[in-house]
């Protein structure tokens, strides 16, 4: 991996009527990196994407994307990036091939370059057998792949994907990520936003965004290790009924019920005994107890609160 930056933001800020949607963002994404921007609705993810895609002007600060300033050189940025917004503009009454050709026109891809490039796009997106199908007749997962193919028709250096797998089933989601890995091999930098933290674990680094600010930025495993306290999984035959009892035990910060298991976040590992006692007193049998690594979701929720 190359250490030079594909995206670098400096106090990037965008306000909508005094309300900062993106608030002094300082990010540095390396070339060839797969970076995930994670946060709840309204955190500022889409605004960040639109700023980086140079289709929205910053209120303050600047960003360099693929070597060009979004403030002073927006047109050059647009030529170097592929941007797939949440509602990618596919033409449902055009075929797969016609959609790709339309975007090739839009990006001014030369006639000579088109055939090999389109063949490759159809190949890696597994859309070749469907090239004559109307886009409106594709499944959700296939539409996402076509959107991606269209966003890549001009071989961009940086790919910006805004919640690309929203509403897509797990099998299609995996396919989609495989395609992204294929692009990494070619050296493309991928900046992807998602509201799903299990998906964020696939990124090389993750930024947790909340209220326009990045609250934490690191590798997923480092983020998980950063959660203060200790996460203990208790197996119990009637875990759901036990949740209320556990919540009241000393040192318990949060409790989540997963079927027959409780995930209990404690200030300290040593306090697990209190939880066990509380459960014993209530007549709830503890079947198992082990320390587990918190999920990204656990970290996120403990940071932004309920």
């Amino acid at each position, binding site marked *: 991996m190359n250490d030079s930056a594909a995206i670098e933001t400096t106090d990037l800020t965008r306000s909508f009527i005094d309300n900062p949607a993106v608030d002094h963002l300082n990010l540095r994404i390396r070339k060839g990196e797969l970076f995930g921007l994670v946060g709840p609705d309204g955190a500022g993810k889409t605004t960040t994407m639109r700023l980086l895609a140079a289709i929205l002007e910053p209120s303050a600060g600047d960003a360099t994307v693929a070597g060009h300033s979004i403030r002073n050189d927006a047109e050059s940025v647009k030529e170097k990036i592929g941007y797939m917004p949440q509602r990618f503009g596919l033409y449902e009454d055009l075929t797969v091939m016609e959609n790709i050709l339309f975007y090739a026109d839009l990006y001014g891809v030369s006639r000579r370059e088109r055939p090999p490039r389109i063949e490759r796009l159809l190949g890696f997106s597994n859309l070749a057998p469907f090239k004559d199908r109307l886009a409106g007749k594709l499944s959700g997962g296939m539409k996402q792949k076509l959107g991606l193919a269209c966003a890549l028709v001009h071989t961009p250096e940086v790919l910006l994907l805004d919640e690309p797998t929203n509403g897509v089933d797990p099998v299609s989601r995996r396919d989609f990520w495989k395609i992204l890995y294929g692009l990494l091999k070619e050296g493309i930098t991928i900046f992807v936003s998602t509201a799903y933290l299990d998906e964020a674990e696939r990124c090389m680094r993750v930024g947790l965004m909340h209220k326009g600010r990045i609250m934490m930025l690191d590798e997923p495993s480092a983020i998980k290790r950063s959660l203060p306290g200790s996460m203990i999984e208790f197996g119990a035959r009637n875990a*759901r009924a036990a949740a209320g009892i556990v919540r009241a035990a000393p040192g318990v910060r949060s409790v989540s019920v997963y*079927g027959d298991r409780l995930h209990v976040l404690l200030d300290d590992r040593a306090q697990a005994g209190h939880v066990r006692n509380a459960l014993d007193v209530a007549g709830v049998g503890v079947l198992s107890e082990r320390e587990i690594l918190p999920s990204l979701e656990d970290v996120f929720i403990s940071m932004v609160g309920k």
Partner: protein
Amino acid sequence: MLNETDGSPINHNSIAVKVTGLTRAFGEFIAVDSIDLEVRRGEIFGFLGPNGAGKSTTIKMLCGLLAPSSGSGTVGGYDIATRSEDIKKNIGYMSQRFSLYDDLTVEENIRFFSGIYTIPAADRTARSEWVLEMAGLRERRSALTRELPGGFKQRLALGCAMLHKPDILFLDEPTSGVDPVSRRSFWDMISGMARAGTTVFVTTHYMDEADYCDRLALIYRGRIIAEGTPGELRQKHMQREVLEIETDRLVDALDVLGSNNIDSSIFGSVLHATVDDQMRAEQKIRERLSSAGITVTRIEKIVPSLEDVFVTLIESA
């Protein structure tokens, strides 16, 4: 187990939903192909499957909205073929596109649905307060629904689906497009309902959510291909193993494994490879990576995620 609200025992052995050989064809296409399901009272039952697998068709039949082509079943003790009106009175249903009125306030929406469910006038205030409390919407009762943050809308929709205190709740992808913090508080709400004795039948795409369920069934091409608790699915149905591989060159390593037909993905700074035989695969991975000049610092077996299980089952179905 004791019921949290009144201390009465909940009989987990009694059955809330039972179907046998349930089938629905649309012309030549068999959307649901002779499935058997049994959901116990007070259970959170997760019904999983990719788009078009038959999830929504099944839910529609269970809710009495669509007649089965063949097979039989009961919901809340009522026959789905003959007693669909009784079923509708005893279930709550919330779909991905719940029909709240955006230009009504929270309280007005609740009042509107109280009318639809013909809640007696004398009970309406109390029932409305109960819903507001459960959904954490007391302070927002006069807010326009349109102006509610996404997660609160979901909870209001769930509250409205619970106004008539149904025994069984059907949720069809209730958290689609909801952010992580809201999703977790939504599941807390569902968990509270199950604790109070409501049976919850839920479909979801998100495998991390499947872990909230007591039991799961996986449907694919109209057939149930696996069933069990999340733990059982991980143990019994995952014939393949997942190895975590740490190297000095992530993307190059992924490329080498891919060209050797080893199914692998990036997870942060490591790779996860799904393999048939740990010993043989580990040796092969070490050989191939080292001959490409890549240093392997660690390989270890990890607990597969439900998504791993799900994808493996579907690929081998």
